[in-house]
Structure formats: structure tokens, C-alpha cells
């Protein structure tokens, strides 16, 4: 099923933010916003839910640290205990540094991998830009024409009132 979109293209972050706020206030469905850099306040304006990535990172950190403590204990105290300078086989304090490093490694690799996974980024993925220039100097607000309340001409006027450089109707397939 095809979907109809209206793309407003802006030149600076203030106009973009204003366009997002107005669209939201009027109950339009903001499909996405495209920007060449992370603009402060867009996620609040769009009403995006906070990311759950920190929880994944936390869980992986705990998992990595836990596994490492167990592994160090298992290798040095159970599998092949070796007397090194009379130190106890289970030298817990000496395990702290490596445990910390492995915890950070798990958390960091997990953060990056889950970021790629959640955002669907992978090598060789074809990039789909709503309009050219959103990785250079253009900001784009993409609205979906959901129902009859959505009057394209009126929205176009609203965008143009915010100094939109271009307003374009696009027809896309499922999933933008």
C-alpha cells in the first residue's frame, strides 16, 4: 500500500524546530525528521520516547563483569590451581582490574552493536534520503497524510511561513 508524504525542507534548526512543534500541536503524524547534525530539542519536539539503550548497556556490563569473575575464579581456583608466590587460589582482589575491563568491553561493544541493530544500520545498506542535502545543510520534516483533516495546501503554507525552502509531496512504499 502506498503512503503519501509531505516533506518540508528548511535551512536552519530554529525553523525546523518550530515546524516540528507546530505540526505536533496540530496533530499531524511526523514520520521522521532529517538533520545534518544532532539538533538540541528535536526529540522533545517530536515526542520521541527516551531510548532504552542505557538498559541494554547496563545489563551487558553486569553480564560481562559477572562472567569474567566466574571465569577467573574457575580457571585459577578450580580448573588448574597454580601456586603463584603463595597467593590464595581465589585471589578476588587481583581479579578486579580484568573484571572491570571486560565489563567495559561488553557494555561498549553491546552499546554499539545494539545501536546498529535498532537503527537498522549495516554495511552496504542503501541510504534513502528524503531530499538531497540532509547530510550537508538541509533539514527535512516528513509528515504523513493520514486522513482528510490533512490539507496539503494548508500545511504547505504553514511550512512556507517558517521559511521552508521547498515543500514536496512524495509517495512512498510501506516503511518510507
Amino acid at each position, binding site marked *: 500500500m502506498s503512503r503519501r508524504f509531505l516533506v518540508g525542507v528548511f535551512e*536552519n534548526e*530554529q525553523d525546523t*524546530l*518550530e515546524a516540528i512543534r507546530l505540526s505536533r500541536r496540530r496533530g499531524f503524524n511526523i514520520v*521522521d525528521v*532529517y*538533520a*545534518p*547534525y*544532532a*539538533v*538540541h530539542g*528535536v*526529540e522533545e519536539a*517530536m515526542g*520521541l520516547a527516551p*531510548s532504552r*539503550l*542505557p538498559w541494554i*548497556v547496563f545489563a551487558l556490563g553486569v553480564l560481562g563483569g559477572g562472567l569474567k569473575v566466574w*571465569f*577467573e575464579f574457575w*580457571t*585459577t581456583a578450580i*580448573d*588448574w590451581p*597454580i601456586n*603463584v608466590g603463595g597467593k590464595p587460589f581465589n585471589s578476588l582482589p*587481583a*581479579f578486579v*582490574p*580484568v573484571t*572491570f*575491563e*571486560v565489563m*567495559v*568491553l561488553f*557494555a*561498549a*561493544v553491546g*552499546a*554499539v552493536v545494539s*545501536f*546498529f541493530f*535498532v*537503527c537498522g*544500520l*549495516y*554495511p*552496504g*545498506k*542503501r*541510504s*534513502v*534520503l528524503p531530499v*538531497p542535502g*540532509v*547530510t*550537508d*545543510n538541509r533539514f527535512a520534516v516528513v509528515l504523513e497524510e493520514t486522513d482528510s483533516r490533512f490539507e496539503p495546501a494548508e500545511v504547505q503554507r504553514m511550512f512556507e511561513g517558517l521559511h521552508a525552502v521547498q515543500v514536496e509531496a512524495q509517495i512512498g512504499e510501506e516503511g518510507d
Partner: protein
Amino acid sequence: MADAVLTLRPPLIEGNKSIAQVTHDVCAPMEARPTSLWWAALAVSSSLLLLGVVAIAYQVAVGVGTWGLNRTVGWAFDITNFVFWIGIGHAGTLISAILFLFRQRWRTSVNRAAEAMTIFAVMCAGIFPVIHTGRPWFAYWLIPYPNTRGSLWVNFRSPLVWDFFAISTYFTVSAMFWFIGLLPDLATIRDRATAKWRRKLAGLLSLGWNGSYRAWQRYEVVYLMLAGLGTPLVISVHTIVSWDFATSVLPGWHATLFPPYFVAGAIFSGMAMVLTLMIIARKLMRLEDYITVRHIDRMSKLVILTSGIVGLSYGTEFFTALYSGSPYEQFIFLNRALGPMFWAYWTMVSCNVFIPQLLWFRKVRASVPAVFAISIFVNVGMWFERFVIIVTSLSRDFLPSNWFHYAPTRVEIATLLGSFGLFFTLFLLFCRFVPVIAVAEVKGVLKYGLTHGKSHAEAVHE
């Protein structure tokens, strides 16, 4: 736009750039042919790299006996170089992670290059312990994997094993952090590339990034997470490096002061190296509007701060040794300052504590050549710091009959030069093929100072 009332802070980027101009200024040099200056620099650095490759091939083939080590001085040049390079890397993480958490937005102009420096410095550092094992082809034995030697595990109580984990984690996390920061810029390169190979390559590496805000939102979260993980990580890495020494019982090494002392020293030396590289890069790539005198000024202030901590550490360890009541400790420190290696000790103190004091003067900080010269002195001084710590403590230990001196051989010096060759070759290639300035981050601070605190639209509406 630039109302007098709103211009309360000087902007971070000079020249009143537009967003498109930033893209152009950073990307254009990569698309043009390299300058002759760049070729000349690459010729020098790659010759040094070649020298290093030959030296390493020779010492691996013949053995560690090609070094000037003896039974008394079992660690010297090699470990000095290792600690030196690891320390250099730390300033990159300071700029990219710690200053990010402190919301120091001036870091955007220098963080890309500083992180690249971190990665290259860690690569240089990694070479030394591997060749120091004597049989580098068995270096993989450091990894605790199930093996046919009875499944003999590594000794997790050993600081050298901690070091292996710390350095490899540090390298992995730094490389990922760098790549994440690079992602939006790779997409920018992809979308403006005219050469087909460049579009293909940047397209592959940019993972289909399209500036969608749903990705930006998570990107910012991941960036914050990595900065938060990188900050304790960088402190842990040099702490562990210092434990390589501090967990021994040797006078001059066995000190609880070592971790903070080493971390501060690492950031100090790295900051000096960042200054050296930035001053070269802004000239080479014509980025004076982005890496301004104000950036150099702020980094110089960090140099003074860390120089102060390092100076305080020198004083503290000297005092503690004299006050300890241990004749061995007392001797080691008096021997460092007044013994046969006094010149190395005083080179270290002069370069690290006395000379950086010049940076208290605003005029000195405003002079690029002066800051460059001071940064070179600090680089030299910090190399000598590690040399002094390692060699003086080993060469005169508890038993005078053990005492012996140490002098490096040509092979060792060639290896050190080779590591500089590797470092600068990689850095020059980086300047050519990767945006030296974090384009997407600099775009975010263009208006800094003009409409600081609230957006322009809000400022006008009220």
C-alpha cells in the same frame, strides 16, 4: 543575526561560516590533490617507518639480545616507549570522552583528530610489549583460550595480564567511539562525492546513515554511553600500566602514588602531543578558522594544570622517599637527582615542570610557535620521565654488586624512531582520507556564543 546583545561569548568557529561551508571546508582538501608539503611529510615519516620495520624484523630474527639490556636492567627502552605511547593516547580520550561529559563544546574542533591520535598511539604502544615477549609469534598465548598445554590458563593475578586486557579493551572502545563519531561525516562524504570509488567506499562504511532523527536520538545516547564508559576506562588503563611497576617491591616503583601520578602524566603528555599535531594539522589542512588560537589557549591551560599535578607528584614521591625511613627508597631518589643519570632526571623536571610554567602568560599561549615549542619540550620530557623511572630504579637496586648501567643500542633507537614513523604516517594518511574535523559536531556549535542558551527563534519571539 549577530545582534550586539546576543554576542556575549566569542563564537567557537571563526569566519561566520554557513553550514554548507563547514562541509566544504573540511571535505574539499580530501577531494583535491595532496599538497607537496604533505608529500614531503609523508616521505619523512614513511622512511622512519621503514627503518622501524627493518629494525623490528632484525630483532625478532636475531633475538632480544640485540638490545642493550643486561641482567640488572631488564626493562629499559622498550617499556619506556610502551608507556610513552600509551600515555599519548590518553589525551585523545580526555578530549573525546571526559570533555564531552563536562560539556566543553570547544572540543568539537579537535576531538576527531585527538581520537585518531589515540588509536594510532595505542597501535604504536602495542608493538613494544609484543616484541618484548621475545617470541612475538606466541603473543596469542596472552589470550585465555582452552589449549593443549593442559589448558594452562594465564595468571590473572599478574599486572602484565591486566595490561593486556586493559590495552586491548582500550583500543577496541576507542576505535568504536571514533567510528561512531565518524558515521554522519562518512554519510556527508558519500552524498557529496563525485568520484565513484569514494562514493562506493563511503557508502559501504556509512552503513546507510541518512540523518534520520530516530537514528540521531539513539546516536546521541550511544555517544554518551561510550563517553561514560571511556572515562573510567582511560583512568583504569594508565592505572594498570602504573601497577606494572607499583606491584613490584623495587624502590622508586613501589608507591601508592603511582596510579594518579601516571594518569596525570599520561594526560599531560597526550595534551602536548595533541597540541603538536593540531598546530601541524591546522597549517597543513588550512583549518585556522576551526582550530583557533582560542582552542590552543584552552589546551595550553590543560597542559598547565596537568603539569602542576605532575610536578606535585615528583615532589611528593621525593618527599615520601626521604621521609620513609627506608635507606633504599632514599638512595634511589637521591641517585635519580644526583647520580650518574642526573641529566635525564633534570631534563624530565625542566621539560615537564619548569618550561610549561611559561604558559601562565597569555602572550605565550597566544603565540602558536611558542606553544608548539613548549609542546615538543613536554613530549621529550615525558619520554624521559618513563626512562628515568624505569632505568634508574633497575640499574641500582638493593645490592651494590648487582649495579650496572644501561645504554640503548642502535636497534632500540631505530625501533623508537620507527614507532614515530608509524604514528606520523598514520596521522598523515588520516588527514588525507578522513575528515579531520568532526563536521556534524562543528555544525552544531556554529551559533555558539551568538544565541547561547536558547535558540534564535526563541530569542526573537520573546
